[in-house]
């Protein structure tokens, strides 16, 4: 059976050929091919990694931005709040001041009025005294005339005072 008895010559040539194929292909084909494939994979890998990194950095930047915006908003709010407080304080202070000023003015005015009033009363008193003296004078001048007349005169004088 030739089919299952390996020929020596064929074995010899096959060993030779396969060794040559193995050697040549290893040196001129597999090494460059495998090297190129590995390099390409590494390139893709690093590209992907750097893309990932960039994306991460972008995310970080975005978060940072958001944080800054929120901070800015907070600052603005607090500034506004402060301003409002200051305003309120100012207003209330102003109001207080105005009130106290007004009170003072009013008090002054009251005091002045009082003074004026007193002065006026004094004057009135003085005038009344004067009038009284005048009346007394006139009464005295008409002393001996009719009693009725005297009475009338007195009434008249009193009316006069009333008017004053």
């Amino acid at each position: 059976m030739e089919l299952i008895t390996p020929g020596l010559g064929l074995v010899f040539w096959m060993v030779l050929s396969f060794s040559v194929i193995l050697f040549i292909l290893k040196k001129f084909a597999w090494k460059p091919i495998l090297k190129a494939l590995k390099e390409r994979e590494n390139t893709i890998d690093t590209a992907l990694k750097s893309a990932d990194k960039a994306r991460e950095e972008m995310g970080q930047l975005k978060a940072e931005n958001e944080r800054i915006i929120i901070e800015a908003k907070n600052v603005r709010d607090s500034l506004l709040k402060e301003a409002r407080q200051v305003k309120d304080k100012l207003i209330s202070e102003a109001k207080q001041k105005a009130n106290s000023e007004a009170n003072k003015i009013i008090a002054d005015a009251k005091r002045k009025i009082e003074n004026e009033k007193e002065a006026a009363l004094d004057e009135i008193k003085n005038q009344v005294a004067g009038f009284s003296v005048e009346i007394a004078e006139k009464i005295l001048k008409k002393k001996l005339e009719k009693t009725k007349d005297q009475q009338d005169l007195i009434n008249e004088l009193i009316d006069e005072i009333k008017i004053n």
Partner: protein
Amino acid sequence: MHKNFRKSVLIFIILLAFVLIPNGFAFENRDEDEKENSVKTEHEKEKFAPGSFIFDHVSDSYEWHILSVKDFHVSIPLPVIVYSKESGLHSFWSSKLHHGHSEYKGFCISQTEADEGKIVEIMEDGTEVKPLDFSISKNVFAVFISMGFLFWIFISIAQKYKNKKAPSGFQNAMEPLILFIRDDIAKPVIGEVKYEKYMPFLLTIFFFILINNLLGLVPIPPGGANVTGNLAVTGVLALFTLLVTSINGSKYYWQEIFNAPGVPFWMKIPIPLMPVIEILGMFTKPFVLMVRLFANIAAGHIIAMGFFSLIFIFGDIIPLLGYAVSPVTLAFTVFMTIIELLVAFVQAYVFTLLSAIYFGMATAEHH
């Protein structure tokens, strides 16, 4: 650069054709007296013998037979190189042997049962002696052709990789296979650390088997030789796997073989039962590789040829029946060839995978 390489390959093929054509495509008619002989046996020769028809196809030969029409043979002659102890080294074209019908320099193709189809030297006393036969037979020549194909394909692809451009053309067809062997065979089986060392061998063995399987399916030269369906070829491939396994075997691998841990001592001393079994196992692994590839490819060829033979077997009964059967057998043969195409890939894969598994086992650090 690879354009130049392609050109040189083309020139090589043309030169080869020039060498072959004058010598061969030996269109020859047999001698007159031989014809008379054949007349006597004409009746017997008329009968189609499927056994020898198939056998001639699947076995090695000294010439590359292309076709025969009646007594008109067309074949590519190949160099016969023999070394005889009596008369020294001889080399001549196989066409001198006239397809085994005549002798040359005392050599002829034996017709005896023991050495049928082999070249023998006829001694003076008429006995036949087998010389050392280093002929470039059909299978050797087919191996050379596949070697040429492998160099052409992969060196030109390697040039493309050196250019560092996006992959293109045939490179795209080969890259998935290369990556498949690397990522699905070598890496998981041998391990991330050590696989790189074995990649050249695994790739070479895969593509060598694949290209020879595929060329074997092509019915005309440069295809048609039954290279991977030859026990010598698969044996050498398995031998290489055994060599690589043994050379790279770790301390633990050899310890497993000669002094397997965890086995009771009486299995080793006084009768070294376990070592014997382990050593046998060392050789049965590549032996199985050899037989599996050979049997699968040879069987595929035999079945395909068997379907073809049906045409002639029926044609021998009634010629019309042969014609009637031919579409059916043709359909069967096409079907078989498609299956063979699958087998070509599967067997190349299996051989590579099992080789990788053996390497992985041999280099494993511990169990």
